[in-house]
C-alpha cells in the first residue's frame, strides 16, 4: 500500500511541476516579462518535452536504444502538414489542430509498428543503427517527394513538379526538398502543455500498469520474463508503437508552429534523435521527471549561451562530456558514494528510500 501511494504522490509531483511551469510561463507572458526569444521557445519546449518523455519509454522503460526518434516526429509533422493544407484547410483552427494530432499520431504509430516488427528482433547496438537508418530513410524520401492535389485527388512523384501531371488549378503541396509552405501556424503554448499532460498521463499510466511491469521485467531479464510466459515481442512492440505515436504528436506540434516545413538534417536527421537521447540520458534513464527537466534546461541553455556566439556549442559539448563523466564514471560514482556516507550519515535512511 505504502509503495502505491508513494508512486501516486511522485506522479502528482510530476504533473504539478508541469502545471507550475505552465503557470509561471503564462504569468510571465501576460506580465510581458518574456523576451521574444523565450516566447519563441515556448512551443518548442513542449514538443521537446513530449519527445524526451516518449523516447524515455523506449530507452528507459523498454531498455532499447533507439536513434530514429526524429524519424517518427518527421512522419507526424509531414502527415499533419499535408492534412492542414488539404482536408483541414477549411476547418476551424482548433478542430483542425485536434484532428491533425490524431492523424499524426496514427500515422507515426503505423510507421512504428512497421519498423518495430522486424527491428525488435535485433538487440542493442544493432537496433540502434537500424533505427538510425530508418530515420535517415524517412528524411531522404520526404526530401525527394513531390505531392500535388487537384480535382482527381492526390498526385505523387519522385521526380519534379511537372511529372505530377496536375490539372489547371491543381495545387502543389510538397515541393521536394523545399517542403511544405503556407502552414496555419496555429499551435499555442497552452495546446502544447495539454498535449504534454496527455503524454505524461499515457506514459505514467503505462509504466504503472500490468503491461508496464511486463515491459520492465523484459528489460531487466528477458529470459526470465519469457519463461514466465510473457510475450517479449508483443510488449516491446507496445512500448515502441506508443512511443512512436507520441513522437508523431510532437511532430504535429512542430509543423503547426512553422510557416514552412522542410526535412533537413538539422530538424529530422540523426542529430535531432541524438539530441532527444541526450535529454533522456542526462535526465536519468527511466526517470520521466528527469527527462522533462533535462529537456527544458538543455533547450534553454544553448539559447541563453547565445552571447558566447561561436563558443556556445563548444561549451555545450564540454558540458555534455563533463556531465557524463561526473554522472557515470565508476570512479567518480564511488567517490561520491564515499563522500555522501561521510557527510550525510544521519540521513542515510532517508536517502535509501528517496529515489524517484
Amino acid at each position: 500500500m505504502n509503495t502505491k501511494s508513494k508512486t501516486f504522490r511522485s506522479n502528482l509531483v510530476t504533473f504539478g511541476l508541469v502545471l507550475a511551469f505552465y503557470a509561471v510561463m503564462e504569468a510571465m507572458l501576460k506580465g510581458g516579462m518574456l523576451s521574444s526569444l523565450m516566447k519563441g521557445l515556448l512551443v518548442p519546449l513542449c514538443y521537446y518535452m513530449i519527445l524526451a518523455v516518449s523516447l524515455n519509454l523506449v530507452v528507459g522503460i523498454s531498455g532499447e536504444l533507439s536513434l530514429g526518434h526524429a524519424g517518427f516526429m518527421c512522419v507526424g509533422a509531414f502527415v499533419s502538414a499535408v492534412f492542414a493544407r488539404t482536408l483541414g484547410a477549411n476547418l476551424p483552427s482548433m478542430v483542425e489542430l485536434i484532428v491533425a494530432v490524431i492523424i499524426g499520431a496514427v500515422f507515426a504509430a503505423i510507421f512504428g509498428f512497421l519498423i518495430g516488427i522486424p527491428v525488435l528482433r535485433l538487440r542493442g547496438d544493432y537496433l540502434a543503427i537500424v533505427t538510425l537508418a530508418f530515420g535517415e530513410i524517412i528524411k531522404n524520401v520526404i526530401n525527394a517527394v513531390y505531392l500535388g492535389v487537384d480535382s482527381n485527388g492526390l498526385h505523387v512523384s519522385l521526380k519534379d513538379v511537372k511529372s505530377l501531371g496536375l490539372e489547371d488549378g491543381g495545387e502543389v503541396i510538397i515541393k521536394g526538398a523545399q517542403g511544405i509552405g503556407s502552414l496555419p501556424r496555429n499551435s499555442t503554448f497552452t495546446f502544447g502543455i495539454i498535449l504534454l499532460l496527455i503524454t505524461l498521463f499515457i506514459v505514467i499510466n503505462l509504466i504503472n500498469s500490468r503491461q508496464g511491469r511486463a515491459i520492465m521485467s523484459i528489460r531487466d531479464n528477458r529470459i526470465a520474463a519469457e519463461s514466465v510466459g510473457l510475450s517479449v515481442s508483443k510488449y516491446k512492440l507496445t512500448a515502441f508503437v506508443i512511443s512512436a505515436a507520441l513522437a508523431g504528436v510532437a511532430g504535429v506540434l512542430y509543423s503547426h508552429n512553422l510557416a514552412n516545413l522542410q526535412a533537413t538534417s538539422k530538424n529530422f536527421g540523426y542529430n535531432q534523435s541524438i539530441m532527444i537521447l541526450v535529454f533522456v540520458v542526462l535526465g536519468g534513464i527511466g526517470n520521466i521527471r528527469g527527462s522533462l527537466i533535462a529537456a527544458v534546461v538543455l533547450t534553454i541553455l544553448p539559447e541563453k549561451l547565445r552571447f558566447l556566439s561561436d563558443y556556445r556549442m563548444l561549451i555545450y559539448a564540454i558540458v555534455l562530456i563533463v556531465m557524463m563523466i561526473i554522472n557515470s564514471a565508476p570512479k567518480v560514482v564511488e567517490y561520491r558514494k564515499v563522500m555522501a556516507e561521510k557527510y550525510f550519515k544521519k540521513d542515510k535512511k532517508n536517502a535509501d528510500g528517496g529515489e524517484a
Partner: protein
Amino acid sequence: MSSFLSYLISGISLGSVYAIIALGYTMVYGIAKMLNFAHGDIIMVGAYIAFIVFTNMGLPPVVAILASVAGCTILGVLIERIAYKPLRGASSLSVLITAIGVSYFLQNSALLLFGADSKTFTSLVNIPSVTIMNGEVIISGVTIVSIAASIIVIVLLTLFINKTKAGQAMLAVSEDTGAATLMGIDVNKTIALTFAIGSALAGVAGVLLCSTYPVLSSQTGAMPGIKAFTAAVFGGIGSIPGAMIGGMVMGVVENLSKAYISSQLSDAIVFALLIIILLVKPTGLMGKKVQEKV
C-alpha cells in the same frame, strides 16, 4: 556498358574509403565495445591537417599525409584517455553520449578554428589517370590510390593482428576482457593501441575522402562516418573482413543508385539495404552468432 564500368570503379573507390573508416569503427567496437561516434570527426580533423600542411604550408604531399596520420593518432589516443577511459565499466549508453559530446566538440572546434565557409581541398594525389577499354573508361589517380591503400591497409592489419604479440593481445581482449587481464595483458594499453590504429586509419581516410570529394568543412566527416559505421554493421561489427566487404558494397550501391535511380534517394537505398541485410542476418554478413546462456 562503359559508363556502368566507370560508375562501378568509382563506387569501389568510394567503398575503399568507407572500408578504411569502417575498419576503425569495427576495431574499436570489437575491443572497447563502444560506438565511437566521434570517429567521423577525426577524419575531418585529419583532412584539415593535410590541408594546412599541403596547401597553406606548401610542403610535399607525403609530409601532409604523414602529418595527418600522426595528428589523428595523437588525437585518437588523447580522446580515449580524457573522455572514454574514465567511463570504462559505465553503461554503454553513457559512453555513447560521451562519444557524441566528443563529436560535437571536434566539429565546433573546427568551426571556430577554420570558419564556417568550406575550403576547397586540393587533391594530394598527383598520379596520372589511366585509360582502359580504348579510352572509354578513365580511372583517376585518386581511385587507384584509394583502392591500393585499402588493400594495403587490410593486409597489414591482418598480419599485425595474427602475427604480432600486440595483435594477439587485441584479439584476446576482444574475446574476453576479464580472462585477458588474468593472462597478464595490459587491457588499457591494448585499448589505447586500438584507438591509435583506428584513428591513424581515419587520417588516411580523411586525405583520400577529400582528394575524391574536394569540399572540406566541419561537417565533412559526419555523413561518411555514419555511412562507414553502417558499413561496419552491415559486414558484422567486430569483423575485419566484414568491414572491408561492407564498405565496398556500400560504396558500390551508393554510386550505382546515384547513377541509375535517383541521386536524392541514394542514401535511403543504402540504409534500406542495411535494414534488409540485418533482418536476414541479424549480426551482419560476417558477424559471429552469439550463443545465449540461460
